[in-house]
């Protein structure tokens, strides 16, 4: 059935649908919040699965000449670990999970622009994910050509069998899913923003998601078509990537990395956005250099699409100076972002809640990954380091920093909005510290291993190589990471058990942006009421009419809504309820006219 949504201002109380059972309701739902939650949970489960594979990989590498898993299984493990992390966790967790749930709320929209397309994205993603994993059930095992499926290793002679084919068609499905989501996010941002919410007042998270959407539209079709070509090579005898039939194997690398490098930023930009919002909220300051942030995001996206062949330096077929220079250039906007993140925290009154800790953890970890990336952008260094564990350490600092530290920051920050209750802050912090320590213990030794020449993608090494000690340390760190994720699951579980005691209220963090103007979780079609938008922090402006940064808008805001000193605003909010900050008076949520506030609960989520 179809509902006609008019502007929230005149939205009547939504009718809850009755009569459909739980499962059917889930299957037929086109509500972005339901789909966003499904995506988040599914992606998290994939993260756990791929994480367990990482534990097996690290266990195998813990000692020389180990026979814990066979060479063949090892190949399957790192391939599926990488593929699941990249295609099924990090991306979908960001643009399917967080963005799906949050972007419509941040722009004040009732849903995504194309709700049914959104649902289709989810089903394609789930189907693709299941197919990819089912490769393990086939007789020849899952795909084992690495997450990049280089030709000619990926042709039907070198890697025959159903597993690799399932990997290919699974990625075609999830590729379409991502493309549809990209279209949906862009359309939502372009067409469904609330009155007054101009482009340069959008929260940085929404900006970054929009740019990510564009980047998806640039990158994913290339991957999808390359996969179709690969399928044709394997099955109908085309020779696009095989020398024997006149094809060009390196073409695969060009196509793959034209997707692959932007993909890294498709995984990073959403988390940059989430972290930016989080740093601002917990420093109680606006984002420093808002416009600069936006321009840097666009610059990063554009540059990231012209550096693909820095993954191909050693092929000897690429224009080294061009790709090297372009790669260095990315450091500039990224550096400016770091400057702005620090500027946002500078002299703020910072509270170190769980999301804030993860956000700061992201800054530190990503900085290291970025800096070693600059090393690798230099061809002579890359010639030495290519395909060693130095690279493995580098890309895990980038990817783990964004998708896991940034992802957990976003997840814990929006957890109250998702669920309606607070996460246990103490357990969350324990998880953070375990992860932060575990992270360095796992990946710093890998830099050294790379320098000692240990290649990646090897299942066994000789005792005489002298790699054993560092590998053992790294494996210990990996177990610590496993523990940290387990602790986070405990935090979720504990919070669920105690959910009655820790209701979140509308705006537990005293946050800035529109998603906090509605109840937690938001009602069907999201808003009964939207505060006037006069800056990039509408909810904060509304709750803190006397704050200095609101001064410039103060007169205007007062005229429009009648908050602050009651300058004769007839029937304005001021006369009905005094504005309050979080932790102040409890506002009756849901009546549609209370100031947006917490429920008297302290922002850390510990019950008093």
């Amino acid at each position, binding site marked *: 059935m179809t509902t006609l949504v008019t502007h929230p201002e005149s939205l009547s109380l939504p009718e809850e649908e009755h009569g459909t059972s739980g499962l059917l309701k889930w299957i037929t739902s086109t509500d972005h919040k339901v789909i966003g939650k499904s995506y988040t949970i599914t992606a998290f489960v994939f993260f756990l699965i791929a994480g367990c594979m990482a534990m097996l990989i690290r266990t195998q590498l813990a000692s020389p000449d180990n026979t814990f898993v066979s060479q063949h299984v090892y190949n399957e493990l790192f391939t599926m670990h990488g593929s699941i992390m990249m295609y099924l966790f990090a991306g979908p967790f960001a643009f399917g999970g967080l963005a799906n749930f949050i972007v419509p709320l941040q722009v004040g929209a009732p849903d995504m622009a194309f709700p*049914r397309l959104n649902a289709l994205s989810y089903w394609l993603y789930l189907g693709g994910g299941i197919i990819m994993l089912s490769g393990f059930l086939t007789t020849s095992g899952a795909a084992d050509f690495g997450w990049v499926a280089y030709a000619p290793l990926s042709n039907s002679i070198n890697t025959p069998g159903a597993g690799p084919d399932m990997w290919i068609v*699974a990625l075609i499905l999830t590729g379409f899913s991502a493309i549809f989501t990209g279209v949906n996010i862009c359309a939502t941002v372009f067409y469904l923003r609330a009155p007054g919410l101009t482009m340069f007042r959008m929260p940085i998270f929404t900006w970054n998601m929009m740019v990510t959407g564009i980047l998806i539209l640039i990158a994913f079709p290339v991957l999808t078509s390359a996969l179709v070509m690969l399928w044709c090579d394997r099955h109908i005898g085309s020779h696009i990537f095989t020398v024997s039939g006149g094809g060009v194997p390196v073409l695969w690398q060009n196509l793959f990395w034209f997707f692959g490098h932007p993909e890294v930023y498709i995984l990073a930009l959403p988390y940059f956005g989430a972290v930016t919002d989080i740093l601002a909220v917990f420093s109680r300051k606006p984002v420093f250099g808002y416009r600069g942030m936006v321009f840097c995001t666009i610059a990063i996206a554009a540059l990231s699409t012209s550096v693909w062949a820095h993954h191909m330096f050693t092929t000897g077929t690429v224009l080294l100076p061009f790709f090297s220079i372009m790669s260095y250039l990315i450091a500039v906007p990224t550096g400016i972002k770091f400057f702005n993140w620090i500027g946002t925290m500078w002299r703020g009154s910072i509270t170190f809640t769980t999301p804030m800790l993860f956000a700061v953890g992201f800054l530190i970890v990503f900085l290291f990954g970025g800096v070693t990336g600059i090393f690798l952008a230099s061809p002579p260094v890359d010639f030495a380091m290519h395909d060693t564990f130095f690279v493995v350490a580098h890309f895990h600092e980038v990817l783990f920093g964004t998708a896991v530290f940034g992802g957990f920051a976003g997840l814990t920050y929006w957890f109250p909005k998702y669920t309606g209750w607070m996460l246990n802050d103490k357990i969350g912090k324990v998880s953070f510290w375990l992860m932060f320590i575990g992270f360095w213990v796992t990946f710093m030794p890998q830099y050294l291993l790379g320098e000692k020449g240990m290649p990646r993608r090897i299942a066994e090494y000789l005792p005489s190589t002298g790699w054993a000690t560092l590998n053992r340390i790294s494996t210990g760190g990996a177990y610590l990471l496993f523990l940290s994720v387990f602790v986070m699951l405990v935090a979720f579980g504990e919070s669920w058990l105690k959910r009655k005691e820790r209701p979140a209220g509308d705006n537990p963090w005293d946050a800035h942006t529109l998603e906090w103007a509605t109840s937690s979780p938001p009602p069907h079609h999201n808003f009964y009421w939207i505060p006037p938008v006069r800056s990039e922090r509408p909810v904060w402006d509304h709750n803190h009419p006397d704050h200095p940064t609101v001064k410039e808008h103060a007169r205007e805001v007062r005229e429009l809504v009648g908050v602050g000193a009651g300058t004769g605003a007839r029937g304005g909010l001021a006369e009905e309820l005094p504005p309050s900050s979080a932790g102040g008076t409890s506002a009756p949520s849901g009546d549609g006219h209370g100031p947006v506030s917490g429920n008297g609960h302290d922002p850390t989520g510990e019950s008093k």
Partner: protein
Amino acid sequence: MRVEGQVLLVIAAFFGVVALVYWFWSGETSGTALLTGTCLLGTLPGGYYFWWSRRMKPRASDDPSAKREDGEGVVGTFPSSSIWPFVLGVSAALVALALVFGFWTAIVGFVGATTAVLGIIRESRRGGVV
């Protein structure tokens, strides 16, 4: 609408320049083709938005001093539930499996997909304003 158009046009311009530089410096075809495609991806929708932005009156969401009442009226139609995306998704997965295991799942898949597409079209008609 103007800023949206400009963002896309900036991207188009950037890739136009990069494609030219890349072509004359490297002479490599696949990368040049991809960069040119990216330039077009910015040009077409960007140009369209920009063209429109000069012909339409600013929307409430483009107006920095819009009042809340300015946005009143119909935002759009939003289906609140539909079985067809699920059917379409499962059908697509069946078609995909046929690419691995042989043809029979594709038959079920195509039937399912056709039904789903028809279903979505019917749903939209019934919904009225789209």
